[in-house]
């Protein structure tokens, strides 16, 4: 029977949770890297025991950890993230130019084909890559040097590059997203980038339909249809059917279209999940009820799922990196909260069970299906 391994990053360490394919009983190990912020832990698709973790701290900066045995043991690898050439400036919150300063890695995206190659999304926004298993990192500077770079501005949580999607059908094509610059795409392996934000509308920026400046919270794709993308923007749930050339809103009947994560069912490319959050000034669910919304039509028509989730006095948030799916059948769906719960659904979102209830605030959840 298949085995499931969940990789959970929190404000105070990482936790690894394992279960069999039923996904009912879980063993929890951790905290790993106790006391450190773990923004993200992710495994290589081609070598599931090769894990990478982003470990950071306001005191001690950035550390990257690597495991070759599925998280039993770890070694610190390279943590030298240096912008390539002159750093230039982006806009600060007050609209003044501010030099690029490296703070942390938000997201690690292992290559689809090589366990030693990993892309890393940083704050202040930049894309880095290692080809030696994390020992050394080089910036792909074409993104940061995009002509719009001096106009990028941080979101409230910092100017992080938080999403990296590699096109499984075309390794030269990648999508990234930055808060609050928006979506960018490369078609040449990361050398050059284009902003891909046509159709987005953000009332909080001077030109609501500007080419850059949108606070994109997350984008997701299904492996079988890499030209179809789904987005949770600050406000608005969006989709693109032309590889991000343009976007249309699919918020439909959601009670609020603010939120952070979005993900796609492993076997149904038109089935997507969001967790609506009341507003950008109240980062918690509406009416104290934690509800996952699922659309089986790629958006617009949404259904709430509450079975197993708290339906009173619940005021947690679900952050952008904190939801994922597994590839079993039925598809498993997972999310973590800022209240320290990690919920799992073994029936594609119909019902939910907490794996753990009392972790530090959950920053990220990834899951692996092991042979």
């Amino acid at each position, binding site marked *: 029977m298949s085995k499931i391994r969940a990789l959970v990053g929190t404000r105070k360490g990482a936790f690894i949770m394992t279960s069999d394919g039923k996904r009912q009983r879980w063993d929890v190990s951790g905290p790993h890297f106790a006391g450190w912020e773990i923004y993200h832990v992710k495994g290589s698709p081609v070598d599931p025991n090769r894990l990478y973790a982003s470990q950071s701290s306001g005191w001690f900066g950035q550390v990257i950890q690597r495991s070759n045995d599925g998280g039993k043991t770890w070694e*610190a690898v390279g943590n030298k993230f240096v912008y390539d050439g002159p750093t230039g400036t982006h806009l600060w919150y007050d609209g003044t130019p501010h030099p690029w300063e490296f703070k942390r890695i938000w997201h690690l995206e292992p290559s689809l084909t090589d366990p030693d190659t990993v892309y890393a999304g940083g704050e202040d926004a930049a894309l880095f890559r290692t080809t030696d298993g994390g020992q050394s990192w080089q910036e792909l500077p074409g993104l940061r040097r995009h002509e719009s770079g001096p106009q990028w501005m941080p979101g409230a949580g910092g100017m992080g590059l938080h999403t990296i999607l590699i096109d499984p059908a075309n390794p030269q094509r990648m999508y990234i997203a930055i808060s609050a610059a928006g979506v960018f795409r490369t078609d040449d392996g990361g050398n050059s980038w284009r902003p891909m934000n046509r159709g987005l509308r953000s009332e909080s920026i001077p030109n609501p339909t500007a080419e850059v400046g949108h606070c994109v919270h997350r984008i997701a794709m299904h492996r079988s249809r890499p030209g179809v993308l789904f987005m949770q923007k600050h406000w608005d749930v969006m989709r693109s059917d032309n590889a991000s050339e343009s976007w249309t809103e699919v918020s439909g009947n959601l009670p609020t279209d603010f939120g952070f994560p979005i993900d796609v069912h492993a076997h149904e490319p038109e089935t997507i999940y969001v967790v609506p959050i009341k507003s950008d000034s109240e980062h918690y669910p509406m009416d104290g009820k934690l509800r996952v919304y699922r659309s089986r039509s790629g958006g617009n028509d949404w259904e709430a799922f509450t079975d197993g989730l708290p339906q009173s006095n619940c005021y947690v948030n679900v952050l952008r990196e904190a939801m994922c799916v597994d590839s079993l059948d039925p598809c498993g769906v997972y999310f973590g909260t800022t209240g320290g719960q990690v919920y799992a659904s073994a029936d594609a979102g119909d019902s939910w069970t907490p794996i753990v209830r009392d972790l530090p605030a959950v920053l990220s959840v990834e899951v692996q299906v092991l042979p």
Partner: protein
Amino acid sequence: MIRVELPANLRILAHIRGDVTVEVEGPATQRSVLDALESRYPMLRGTIRDHVTARRRAFIRFYACEQDLSNESPDAPLPEAVASGKEPYLIIGALSGG
């Protein structure tokens, strides 16, 4: 032999149990001690000083002999009691945050 005390998080990161001691060639300065420490424990690079500028990270302080050396020149000689191993060189994480 110079004794160095590290914050708990860095001791764990570097898999250090017990005392940390380093040997430096030439004058014992903050720079030579930190260079020796990072050479022996490469995983500490970037966690105390910036990789490129070698400047102290903002929430790290350096103490010795009841003095705050954080803003002293990194090339100034350390107190004799530190250089001789009688007193430790303290690397401190500031009391802040949550």
